[in-house]
């Protein structure tokens, strides 16, 4: 009886907490699907279902383009990071060259640098080389991430060295050892870090905001913030935009939640 009560008490608490943390998102969806007239009325009649906000938003056109841009950028960054990070992680994990640990430590130190501090010089020098205001300006600086290298290396360190030694004896090159043994074996951690990279890039805001000028290159976050600037009081429209931006991440979460939850657990244990 006592146990049962405790069960219900915790369910109640969890539900209240859920209303508080997920509430804003629910409110976003409700507003997005309420007809503009109902929203403008005093008092507003929330929940009067209509797709009007989405129609207006999609007819304005750009949001589809921004979504595609966000997808291209996130996919390119994820792909590049998976390749470069895993290659570097392999080099650091298996390589026996001079200065290996010191280079690795310097890379790790880079993890502490807050993004905002390098933003300004980075912008100036990329502008100098004509690298701003296109999707590359967002992709290039994110192509390799010390944190990713660190995570993958930790994982590769746990792969027994005997495997690569045996392959070496069989005449495999280092590249083959990487592609045939280490890369496939590291799949779980690569999937996890890939998903997190994708989400982080999808949500990136400050750097794209600074470097993208043309509307046709906006990513979704930048586009939405300009939408907020333009349609200051049209909350139905804004919430429809926000909903559209959140949906792909929810889908990613539903499909990959196993990897994500697993990855977080692994990260925690290390």
């Amino acid at each position, binding site marked *: 009886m006592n146990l049962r009560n405790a069960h219900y008490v915790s369910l109640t608490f969890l539900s209240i907490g859920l209303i508080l943390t997920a509430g804003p998102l629910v409110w976003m969806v409700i507003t997005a699907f309420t007809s503009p007239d109902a929203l403008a009325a005093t008092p507003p009649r929330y929940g009067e279902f209509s797709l009007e906000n989405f129609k207006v938003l999609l007819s304005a056109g750009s949001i589809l383009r921004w979504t595609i841009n966000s997808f291209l950028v996130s996919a390119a960054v994820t792909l590049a990071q998976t390749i470069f990070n895993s290659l570097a992680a392999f080099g650091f994990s298996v390589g026996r060259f001079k200065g290996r640990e010191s280079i690795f430590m310097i*890379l790790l130190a880079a993890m502490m640098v807050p993004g905002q501090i390098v933003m*300004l010089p980075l912008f100036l020098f990329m502008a100098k080389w004509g690298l701003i205001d296109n999707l590359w300006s967002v992709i290039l600086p994110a192509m390799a991430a010390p944190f990713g290298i660190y995570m993958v290396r930790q994982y590769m360190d746990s792969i027994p060295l005997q495997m690569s030694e045996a392959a070496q004896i069989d005449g495999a090159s280092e590249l083959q050892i990487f592609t045939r043994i280490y890369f496939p074996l590291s799949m779980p951690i690569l999937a996890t870090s890939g998903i997190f990279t994708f989400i982080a890039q999808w949500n990136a805001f400050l750097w794209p905001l600074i470097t993208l000028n043309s509307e046709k290159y906006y990513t979704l976050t930048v586009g939405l913030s300009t939408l907020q*600037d333009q349609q200051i*009081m049209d909350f139905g429209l804004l919430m429809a935009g926000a909903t559209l931006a959140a949906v792909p991440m929810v889908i990613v979460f539903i499909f990959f*939640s196993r990897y994500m939850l697993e990855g977080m657990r692994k990260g925690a244990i290390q």
Partner: protein
Amino acid sequence: MKNSIAIILRQSRLKLLLTALLITILHCSVSHAAEEITLKIWDFPRWLEPGENTDRFTWMNRKIKEFEAQNPGVKVDLTKLTWQRGHEKLKIAAVSGNYPDVAPGVVPLLFIRENLIEPIDEYLSGEDRADYFPAALKAFEVKGKTYGWPWYMGGQLLYVNADIFASAGVELPVEGRWTPEEFTQKMAQIKAYLSPTESTPAAATQNTKTQGHYPLGLYFQKDETANLPFLMCFGGSIIDRDGKYAGDSEEFLKGIKWINQLREMQIIPPDSGGRSANDIWTAFGREKRLAAGAFGLWGIKAMTDKFPTNFEVVHYPAQPGQPSGSFLGTSGFYVFKNSDKKRVKLAMQLARFLTLGEQQRDLVHYTQFPTRNSAGNIYADNRHMTAAWKIFQEGQSVFADSRWPQIDEEVTSAIQQSLLGRFDPLTAMRESGERVKRVLSVESGSISEDVSKSSYFALVIAIISLLAMVFALLSRQAHLIMIVPAVSLTGLFLFYPLADALLLAFRDYRIGEVGGYTLANFIRAWNDPRFIIACKNTMLYSFLVVPANVFTALVVASLIHGLRGKTKSFFRAAYYLPGVASVVVLTMVWRWLFNTEVGLFNSTLRWFGMNPIGWLSDPSVAFFSVIISGILKSPGGAMLIYLASMANIPNSLYEAADLEGADAFKKWWHITVPLLGGTTTFLMITGVIAALQVFAQVLMLTDGGPGNSTQVVVLRVYTSAFRDFDFGLSSAMALILFAAIMVITIIQRRFSRQEVEYLA
């Protein structure tokens, strides 16, 4: 006959020749068309054409098409700006050499000083010159040269709601003129009408609903000059005619005292210093709760079409015989310099085309006044616009100097502070005066030249990376080859800019002043009141939000840990889910919830009969709203880490506790919580590191306002770099933040090492 044939032949030969010539010319022009010039134009959102819901660029796109049709071989590429970030974007683009051919706005003093703008005098025909109103061309004139094609003139007006005046039995000002005393008196009468119970204190406390009724709304924000004439109505000004600071003059202070008096009389709300134009507009135009408010010319259109109101435009209060001094602005298009003369010429043609008299007739949709005579009187049948035109004849312009934005920001913040009762006006205005004088003392100079020099270091790193690759290839060390790409990328996009930021922090490097190495940036950071507020706020944020988040995660994880099966997976997923949404998305929702007039929170408060709260407009509340939005976010990642750690706690401990008869809470408090200590420390420290960098949330919720009450460190780093172009100061502040994060990271290392020893 033969002769004639010969003549014909000769003629036809001539024709042939002519045709050949024509073909060659045509061919030339066609081949020119093949290489096609693409002009870049940037523009702000304008009016909504009839039938449009969202697109405020229809007119511009149509005009571009017309221009392209008139000039074959020319393409025009439009970049759409926003009113909020457009100016910043233009500045960034200009300084980094990434500017368009044609850009919109008022006279671009900053760019003119940087020598980036082409004067139009050469391209301005006598006809054009005669057609333009002299004042319009004058507005674009700097040192005898004209730097832009004026398009429209506008300004700010005082609007009154005639219905409220009538029902309160108060006369509208005669000919729209009133002195400050008359204005106060009329407002007080309306106030008495709106909340008649105010005089008896007991009734006032009982009848809380009427307390929100103020007859007047004011707002003082940067880039908003609409309400400055109120402060200047006793003859004061911020910058006097000689270009000297006059914000601490008796006349100007009298203006502030007068507004403060209005606040004490409850004619304006107590948080007027933090109100935004939007708040006041909603109350005046949409909900018709205010008797008076100052807005741009656009108000006339809005209150004629979309929000029909019985309104009048009137003069700002002024002493008898003095001009009412509303602020005017002339906007147009200017052309950036380019070594390609043909391009400049085309850009000039485009700018001229857009501002021709016949195009200016379309300004009737925009409710702005044309700048050319040939546009004719497009507002002949519009009573309000005609009245506005008369009022504008007594108007004034803001201080025409490229340093005005910095001055504006300093002075606005001082005005806000003194209206909020934080400081007495004299002190606030004197202090801001000190900073304005410093801004004014700095002489002009160019940074765009220096910027182009600054990337040699990056080149060095790129070359080193290449050499490393070559070395790795030569030495045939496969592993070395593998790490070079990632290490080079990190070097180029992280270590190089870091090194550059370090250098910048120790350099005198800001707009108008590019100098040698100095420590002054750190001293200036220390003396920068906004940075100090930012530091305090950021610390407050970290100390409140991080423990709250970690505690929530701990409680939620503990409760979920006790569940089984599907319920467990459901709650785990549901709590994690909001965490995958971007800060931008979440912040948009929070803005909607916090909205003063129509947001959910205030609607709920009103429904319960309580006073609405200025969640984002009241400076004493705004930062707590930011904190609330920080606390009520998904405990996602932290919760999962806790869950993982809980799974590692051996069951035997709980069984032992069961034997001793401990209840669930005691077990949790004495076993679970202490054993999770390491995880808690880890989460706290990483949380603090993240919280110290809070930015996007604040930028989108409040942009640091009202009255700087929500400044945070990274926002200050951002604004000082990209709005004030004070790169040295920005880097110095970023470095201070970096140092703080470094210290915390080292502490974390220390802790986690202990943790490892403990586990071993």
